[in-house]
């Protein structure tokens, strides 16, 4: 134990990667022996930083130090790391090979033999190392498969936290070196096992891996089925929850269930790691969040776009917000074409295309508020519609849907509206909170929310703590 104490003091100065690995190995060992999972968690916390500092030399010395020479399975690890076998290495190889033929394969465990968790941990480091160069991608896939087999055969609860991380690495291997779809059977089988063994961390991690894999290939139906057939473990960590809610948000948005998507994305934001640690995720969630808000008829809060970490990433989205606000189809179309490639990469393109209707609705609303009478021809011109005929139908639909209040006088070819409403019309009475909002789409957004709320009340979906209806 004194050993560990002194090395702890060394942590004050930066540890060399090899030394850090050695320390971690000791910690894992201790975690297993003393049944203290917090040591394992501590080791894993340093994983992201550590793996950036490892290279094949570090890994080689780590293997050597932690596995007394001649242990059979260390050779596999060894070979995975060695890029070129020099003469000296070959000699070492031969030596170890010679030794293994004499030692019995049936393990007679000397006390210095590290626990299996250590092996998995080292494998994890190796897999991450192999991700760093293209030529090693195939090897990483191979090693991933082997590691998975090993993990599954050792049914050890003490391995669970490390296993959860390994699955993430496995997914990366397949994504880089092979076809992500090929990993799916592995994930599915492991997910069932994890559920049975109540291995919550791994279970959560695997559900997320599966969802990501389905969404990568746009298999929304299957993703939906997976969600309905599994229960996400409630004890999962916040980052896992954040991912889960993000995936849910995407699926619901595609299925036109915008209010559910909105709730999920809010949860994702709440549970996500801070913008500093994971800016990529933060940006991705907010991109989707902004689009969903617009699809619900709301205008996203402008302050979102000014946050430093989001300003650049969400620039294209801010342009779309502007086009929707002004109700200009031409501006909308221009912005869409300009940023098409980015939206495609973000997988938000098809959702944004659906905003066309919102642009038209906003445009019509603006016109109805500014004019007490306007010809259909002018409407057609101002909104960039293709014909007067279209304008007539679109306005008729808008009136019926409650977007505006007015009448069409067909023979004269114009639309008449009530003109400017004052602030104390029936709308304000119903939605006193919204009287503050100056945004044009506010009333419309509120109306849509009310409709959805009414629908949810009907379906009995309201949560107890939602809105304080005064019932107890």
């Amino acid at each position: 134990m004194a050993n560990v104490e002194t090395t702890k003091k060394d942590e004050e100065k930066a540890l060399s990667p090899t030394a850090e690995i050695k320390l971690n190995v000791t910690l894992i060992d201790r975690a297993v022996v003393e049944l203290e999972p917090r040591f394992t968690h501590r080791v894993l916390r340093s994983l992201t930083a550590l793996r950036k500092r490892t290279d094949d030399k570090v890994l080689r010395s780590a293997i050597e130090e932690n596995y007394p020479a001649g242990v059979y399975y260390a050779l596999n690890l060894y070979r995975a790391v060695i890029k070129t076998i020099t003469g000296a290495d070959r000699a070492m190889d031969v030596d170890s090979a010679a030794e293994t033929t004499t030692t019995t394969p049936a393990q007679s465990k000397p006390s210095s033999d590290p626990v299996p968790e250590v092996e998995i941990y080292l494998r994890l480091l190796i897999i991450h190392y192999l991700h760093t160069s293209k030529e090693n991608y195939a090897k990483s896939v191979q090693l991933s498969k082997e590691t998975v087999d090993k993990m599954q055969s050792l049914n050890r609860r003490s391995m669970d936290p490390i296993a959860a991380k390994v699955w993430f690495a496995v997914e990366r291997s397949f994504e880089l070196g092979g076809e992500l779809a090929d990993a799916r059977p592995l994930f599915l089988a492991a997910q069932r096992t994890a559920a049975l063994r109540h291995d919550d961390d791994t279970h959560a991690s695997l559900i997320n891996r599966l969802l990501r894999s389905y969404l990568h290939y746009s298999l929304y139906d299957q993703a939906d089925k997976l969600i309905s057939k599994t229960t996400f473990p409630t004890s999962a960590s916040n980052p896992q929850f954040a991912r889960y809610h993000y995936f849910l948000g995407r699926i619901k948005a595609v299925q036109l269930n915008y209010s559910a998507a909105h709730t999920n994305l809010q949860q994702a934001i709440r549970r996500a790691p801070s913008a500093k640690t994971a800016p990529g995720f933060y940006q991705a969630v907010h991109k989707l969040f902004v689009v969903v808000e617009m699809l619900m008829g709301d205008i996203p809060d402008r302050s979102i776009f000014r946050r430093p970490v989001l300003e650049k990433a969400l620039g294209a989205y801010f342009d779309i917000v502007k086009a929707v606000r002004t109700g200009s189809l031409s501006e909308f179309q221009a912005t869409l074409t300009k940023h098409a490639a980015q939206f495609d990469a973000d997988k938000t393109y098809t959702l944004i295309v659906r905003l066309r209707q919102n642009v038209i609705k906003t445009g019509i609303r603006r016109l109805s508020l500014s004019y007490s009478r306007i010809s259909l021809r002018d409407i057609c011109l101002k909104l960039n519609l293709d014909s007067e005929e279209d304008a007539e139908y679109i306005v008729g639909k808008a009136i019926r849907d409650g977007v505006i209040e007015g009448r069409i006088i067909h023979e004269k070819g114009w639309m008449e509206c009530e003109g400017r409403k004052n602030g104390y019309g029936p709308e304000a009475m119903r939605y006193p909170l919204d009287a503050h909002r100056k945004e044009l789409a506010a009333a419309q957004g509120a109306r849509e929310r009310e409709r959805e709320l009414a629908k949810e009340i009907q379906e009995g979906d309201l949560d107890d703590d939602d809105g304080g209806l005064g019932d107890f």
Partner: protein
Amino acid sequence: MAPRQLQSLYKDLQRAFDARPSDLKKCGLLLAQLKARALIGLIETGLLLPNGEASLNDMVIARDILEIGAFWSIRAKDIPSFDRYFSQLHTFYTDYRSSLPPSKREFPLRGLNLIRLLTQNRIADFHATLESLPLPADEIGVNPYIRHPVNLERWLMEGSYSKVWNAREEAPAEEYKFFVDSLMGTIRNEIASCEEAAYESLPIKDAATLLFFTSQSELLREDGKSM
């Protein structure tokens, strides 16, 4: 089932289908025969639910048979049958995408499936299916078979009903017209309810035009039906 019998029935089917005008009855009979014998045979040899061991050629034939079946269903106006054929084809299009040579009937059929979803007002499924198409976003506007239903959906949502009416003539394939026609019933209901809300008064002549009727008597007939 002997492969040669399968082949000859398949050739007969193709001939009957490609004949102008298509011999629908004969197709129906042949398809029934093929289904009864060949498809059971296909199931036996594992072709209908392919598990990767069947020969490439057999799979292509199986796919062709299903495709002809799908088109025939529409011409015979048997839509549930179309649904069945399409769901069977779906496996061929998605899972076996990389192993089989592309079929030129694939996108017409995918487009027809999309319109079918529109007529049933399954908008959520429409969008989900659209997302899962193996096309990058900018090509959706280029492929004529997909562009047609996508535009239809957009016009329906916006309310540009005249565009839908005009799109009838521009359908990329004969079979599309069938679905657009069935959409017209829905559209007319929509327009009627919009007219109710938006116009205080409207001469019957104009109402008829707005509803795409060519004469007032048609309008009155339809009105009677919907009353």
